């Protein structure tokens, strides 16, 4: 099939950027979306032009490195699918496809379709862990975990940190990302001692990084390639409220 691509080109953080139109012909429906971009880039290089920069690594939907706004949808038209797993059979001959980077204040563009998602790491560093230095762990079976909680914790832990939730959110909020980690750890007995400091630390880091507030628009969960549910945000809010009332003066034991 033959396609018209309109791709965001931006040479660096200070460049204003613009959409540039490219024609790609003989696209196979068996290609992945990123392979279609590979073909375009090979041609651009031989034509003496700069290839389009985009992030990608595992190309099997798990590393979270790729992320493209495709026709205004984060990761494109297919639900539950990252851009790298999207295949060209989802499109038809003659289509025009707009390809843009994630757009959010906390994700500045580095070049073309590549953005800086370092703010996600800062949110995790502010509490998205359980303090368990190597060597200090008790026997794994010393604390049973109800299967339902373990399964629900897993479902939240499936987040790949791609940033689609932020890109889709009208407020540029990373609340689904933050809530997924808060939910995973607060469902497990091992996560209880730091439950309240964690949620406060992570939400503060989220706000400091320049992400917007959550207004329950729900766009995030629709585009999430791993189906993280909106209910995680409810859990985060509940933990956050409890934490702020309990730890107002940070006195131990209150």
């Amino acid at each position, binding site marked *: 099939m033959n396609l018209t691509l309109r791709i965001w080109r931006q040479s*660096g953080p200070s460049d204003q950027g613009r959409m540039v139109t490219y024609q790609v012909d003989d696209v*196979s429906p*068996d*290609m*992945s979306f990123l392979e279609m971009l*590979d073909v375009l880039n*090979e041609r651009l*290089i*031989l034509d*003496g*032009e*700069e*290839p389009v*920069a985009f*992030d990608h*690594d*595992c*190309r*099997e*939907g*798990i*590393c979270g*490195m790729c992320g493209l706004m495709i026709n205004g949808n984060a990761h494109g038209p*297919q639900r539950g699918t990252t851009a790298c*797993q999207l*295949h060209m*059979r989802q499109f038809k001959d003659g289509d025009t496809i707009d390809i843009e980077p994630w757009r959010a204040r906390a994700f500045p563009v580095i*070049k073309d379709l*590549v953005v800086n998602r*370092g703010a*996600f*790491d800062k949110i*995790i*560093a502010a509490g*998205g*862990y*359980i*303090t*368990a230095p*190597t*060597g200090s*762990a*008790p026997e*794994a*079976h010393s*604390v*049973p*975990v*109800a*299967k339902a909680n*373990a*399964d629900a*914790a*897993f479902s939240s*832990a499936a987040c*790949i*940190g791609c940033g689609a939730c932020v890109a889709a959110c009208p407020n540029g909020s990373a609340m689904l990302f933050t809530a997924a980690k808060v939910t995973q*750890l607060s469902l497990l007995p*091992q*996560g209880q001692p730091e439950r309240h400091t964690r949620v406060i630390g992570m939400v503060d880091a989220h706000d400091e990084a320049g992400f917007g507030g959550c207004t329950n628009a729900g766009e995030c969960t629709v585009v999430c390639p791993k189906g993280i549910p909106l209910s995680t945000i409810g859990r985060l809010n509940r933990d956050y409220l409890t934490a702020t009332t309990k730890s107002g003066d940070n006195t131990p034991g209150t």
Partner: protein
Amino acid sequence: MELYIEGDPVADTKAPEGPIETRWERRRFEAKLVNPANRRKMTVIVVGTGLAGGSAAATLAEQGYRVKSYCYQDSPRRAHSIAAQGGINAAKNYRNDGDSVHRLFYDTVKGGDFRSRESNVHRLAEVSANIIDQCVAQGVPFAREYGGLLDTRSFGGAQVQRTFYARGQTGQQLLLGAYQALERQIGLGNVEMNARHEMLELIVIDGKARGIVVRDMVTGEISSEFADAVVLASGGYGNVFYLSTNAKGCNVTATWRAHRKGAYFANPCYTQIHPTCIPVSGDHQSKLTLMSESLRNDGRVWVPKAKDDDRAPRDIPEDERDYYLERIYPSFGNLVPRDIASRAAKNVCDEGRGVGPTKLGVYLDFSDAISRLGRKAIEAKYGNLFEMYERITGEDPYEVPMRIYPAVHYTMGGLWVDYDLQSTIPGLFVIGEANFSDHGANRLGASALMQGLADGYFVLPNTIANYLAAGPFEAVDGTHPAAIEARRDVEDRIQRLLAINGDRTVDSFHRELGQIMWEHCGMERSDAGLRKAIDEIRALRDQFWQRVRVPGDGEGLNQSLEKAGRVADFFELAELMCIDALHREESCGGHFRAEHQSADGEAERDDEHFSYVAAWEFTATGQPSVLHKEDLNFEYVHPTQRSYK
């Protein structure tokens, strides 16, 4: 000119003597320690943030060392350990099914086809149980039983259920556990994290590894970083084949640059080809996707009996199908080990009986299992895998059989390390897939995650202290002649790549190199084929340095430049892999030589002549490498011929 020169054998692996059960404990006791106040004065560089690198960086920081961590991805959470599906082995014996440290040790040595070091493998089995404890404490959501205890399942090469898992995403969950421990240390200021940085050279001063030269992939800035020790955890080199199940960015540059500076490279020819991957669909193919080995529990592998049979699979009657694994290996059937299943698929395709548009594929058919167990049961077991298959191929595996073909998956070879995981360069330690240590000639399923975390959480943090106890070493900086030279080498290389401005892209060279390697150094190797490959690789490498086109400059983000540097190193590694494969005139594990097989096509190992680790020393570009042999002694597990018939 000779292809290689034989040098002195490897003298000392530093493995302690005595009963194997006590060696690790004794090594830890005899090793020197560093007191906590002195740890704060010492810096360790860790390259790579996968299971091995992430866990090592976090643990060293917890111990009080200053750590500088580097990864080429935009975040340490993305390293390719994240893609591991199946699980992690540990000798917990929670099933009461006869498992033990000794049995895990035994299975791993046998699974490696008797080409690994007994002392190392035993240590791996010993610490395996601690890994599970550690990960549970971190909040890794392993699968559990209704009683709240951990669930386990069985995996290839073992008769006990010792594999812990988190659905089909075990690697992801373990990696996020290590990543979170690392982020905690970053937040505390104990680790300086440098994402989007690529190591391009090792700095060796007075015979010791003292630093690295890195390129900031966003600004293009080249800088020299110094430390008291350097740890490489940069993963495997499967992408030398271009198409593999590795992530696109996986590369050999960190270990290859260290090799050129004096670190021996061990057993480079040992590569694992995984039998169940989605076949190549066309020239545009950029990577291959694994379908979990667990599918072979219920799927039956077949091809048509006749050559060039173009009928749809459902139109081929039962008596015109060849369930070749069941036919050749009646006792193991579809569950033969990875190397055997892969080679059998290649053989039937070579006979012209392959299926699908490229004829490089075999059917994995679930119709019997669906009629026996019902579609619901199959959905519950494999639903996510079936969906992934349909997303990629557009075919519904509930209706038509899957098409699968083998693909490069893991590399057992890597930098040579002693029992302390130290390379032949003092102060340079190598962990995880980047070293050669524990898997011999073939890795068992669910053992890569075990080794990565064993090295990073428990082995390296203990053994590196013995080296650092002599530190802190004399301060060095960028004015040292060796540092200036390393940096200049990096800058010259980048300028050289940018200046060629030829007529072919980096990817076109990489793809062609991959085809040579797959053809001659893949599932089956022969003397004539390997010699041909060596000539072709050399010729193509010359072409690369004359004709490659790398657009742009070195000043900012330049993905073509990154790829060009990696492919240049793959060319050099590819030649060494072929030489290693040529010199090893036997078939063992993932290394199958056409000349060394029995009348019925089974691998023939030659313990009399090849029971050793081949450790290669770099001499100079274009000059033959020197082979150093480390003899393998088997005191506890006696070598036998593997048979699965």
